[in-house]
């Protein structure tokens, strides 16, 4: 299903590119088309965050900073609980953060929720990026390409989870910063840093289909502990990171989102306006005809030379 949909998109996109190049340089056929995104693998990654198992040690924050070369400080300093007083968002110096929420069932054991890029199945940022600097990889991760990005920050406007962040203090080479699922570590056969360090099995890493099954089992086995909702299973068409919790997700500051994919309407409009370049070309032909007809009407009632092409310098000759 995903594969079929994907092929349609590729065809349409390729056509768009070919047609655009053709129109620009009048050399149809010499189009160089960017290698199309690969279809998502059935073995793509899934990660489950069990918010009832997280103890808020914030070791994942430290590991993430260390793995991405960001100023991390001492691991011991992360046991300071005062940071929980204010709600924090992932930023350009912390790609993941943990926040504390009240637990009505047991006030002594607050709920902790880790936030980072969700790695959407159909990411808005990838659809939005003007130069295609963001890629949805076969393995499910969404990664950013330093060599392409122009720093327009449209990905930040598009993302429903407000994840991509920007290095505002830099005038040269500012980066878009977000979780990349530790693509460098994984290429060396290692797990993402946060998952490796998590001491409490709050993070479950595996194939998305397996992880989803595990999540459903957990909810089935402990219906008193969990609410029957896997956040990320269907939200914006599904995400790589998924959450289970003991209370409603809007109480954990997770945006209430529908199941429609984020770029759905936008892409439909975009491809509607440009459907195989038919509308623009039709408009061009229509206006050309109109121009010719009105000119013909004018010349057949005046002494202007006939058959002359209309031009902006008309007024000069008079």
């Amino acid at each position, binding site marked *: 299903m995903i594969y079929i949909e994907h092929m349609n998109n590729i065809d349409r996109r390729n056509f768009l590119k070919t047609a655009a190049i053709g129109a620009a340089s009048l050399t149809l056929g010499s189009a160089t088309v960017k290698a199309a995104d690969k279809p998502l693998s059935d073995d793509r990654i899934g990660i489950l965050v069990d918010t009832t198992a997280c103890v808020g040690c914030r070791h994942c924050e430290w590991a993430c900073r260390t793995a991405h070369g960001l100023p991390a400080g001492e691991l011991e300093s992360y046991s300071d609980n005062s940071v929980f007083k204010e709600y924090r968002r992932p930023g350009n110096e912390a790609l993941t953060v943990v926040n504390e929420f009240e637990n009505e069932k047991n006030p002594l054991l607050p709920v902790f929720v880790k936030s980072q890029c969700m790695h959407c199945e159909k990411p808005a940022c990838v659809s939005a990026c003007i130069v295609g600097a963001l890629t949805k990889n076969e393995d499910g991760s969404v990664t950013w390409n330093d060599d392409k990005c122009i720093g327009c920050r449209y990905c930040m406007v598009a993302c*429903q989870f407000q994840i991509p962040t920007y290095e505002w203090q830099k*005038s040269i080479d500012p980066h878009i910063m977000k979780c990349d699922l530790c693509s460098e570590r994984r290429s060396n056969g290692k797990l993402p840093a946060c998952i490796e360090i998590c001491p409490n099995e709050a993070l479950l890493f595996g194939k998305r289909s397996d992880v989803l099954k595990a999540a459903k089992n957990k909810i089935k086995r402990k219906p008193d502990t969990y609410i029957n909702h896997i956040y990320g299973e269907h939200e914006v068409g599904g995400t790589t990171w998924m959450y289970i919790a003991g209370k409603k997700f809007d109480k954990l500051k997770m945006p209430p989102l529908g199941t429609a994919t984020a770029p759905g309407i936008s892409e439909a409009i975009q491809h509607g306006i440009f459907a195989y370049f038919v509308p623009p070309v039709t408009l061009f032909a229509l206006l050309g005809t109109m121009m010719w007809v009105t*000119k013909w009407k004018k010349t057949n009632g005046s002494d202007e030379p006939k058959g002359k092409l209309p031009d902006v310098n008309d007024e000069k000759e008079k």
Partner: protein
Amino acid sequence: MKPLPVKKNFFSLGVIVLAVLAVNGLAFLSIRFYSGLGAVTNLDNQTPWGLWIGVDVAAGVALAAGGFTSAALAHVFHRESYHAIVRPALLTAMLGYTFVAFAVCIDIGRFYYIWHPLIMWNGNSALFEVGICVMIYMTVLYIEFLPIVTERFIGKVNFPGALAAFNKPVDALLKLLDRGLSKTMFVFIIAGVVLSTLHQSSLGTLMVIAGQKMHPLWQTPVLPLLFLLSAIAVGFPMIIFESLIASKSFRLKPEMKILSNLGSMTVPLLGIYLAFKLGDMFIRETFIYAAKFDYTAWMFLSEIGLLLLAFLMLLSRKTSGSPAMLFTAASLIIAGVLLNRFNNFITAYKPFYDTVTYYPSIGEISVTIGCIALLVLIYRFIVIYFPVISHEKK
């Protein structure tokens, strides 16, 4: 009457004020290039786009719409009597788009990569569509302007000293260019109109992908249509506005016959936009948000109120006859569309995690005002040295 350079001194009191504003803007701009966007703007990770995108880019593109609406009127529909307004409108569009490109260049973090969209394509991206269309349209506008340059210099090429030997060949080249341009110009004129309809609407598609982050009063799948219709509606008022200011500033007789006709033509164009805008509100039943009468609701109501007021003004015959009334109506429409773009990109953007409410900083406002001042100065310079404004020879 034909287009002639305006006989007038470039310098005046107003010019000095504008120059000061421009220098002030450029000073803040230098900080942006030295210390990054964070040093000058109030933008943050929750509000990635602000005044520069909402006003300099989005409103700038809308207010430059006079270029394509007048080209369509005078050249596609061959209403010869409107030729007098084509050149000023073309100049505004050309300068307007140049400043839009400039604003994009200062707003994007990696300004030195601004050429990337030319070779790195993403057909799914509305921004890619806008970017490419604006680049091509800007080129088209410069080509459309070339005949004005050749007209200025043909027969008047006069290099000093030893270079005088080049006078004849350069003149011949200009004539050749002029002939080639007048034979092919119709292609560029139509292309200009097509490109404008495309990117004016795609500018509306831009915010659709923001989904729930955009306030329901503005977030609608018909945004592209609303953007296109409002751009068409603001085209003629913008020409009226400039033409009346220019005739006041240069002490020329205003072209009231043409301008009042443009005013009457604005009535149906504005009416269509308002019908769609209000229709969209009723179909999606978003009036419940407007009836809250909070800050957001007032911003929405004022944008519609300004346009409705202008619409009612233009319905009366008195308005199109009097320069002052016509100027007021045109200004209201311009303000309404400007506010609409500001609202779409800034007021309506209410993300889920909104830690700090965004207000444009002094630096952002200074740069925006500086850019407008610089644009007006260049406009004045060009109409003094090139045959743009039609008037009687004194």
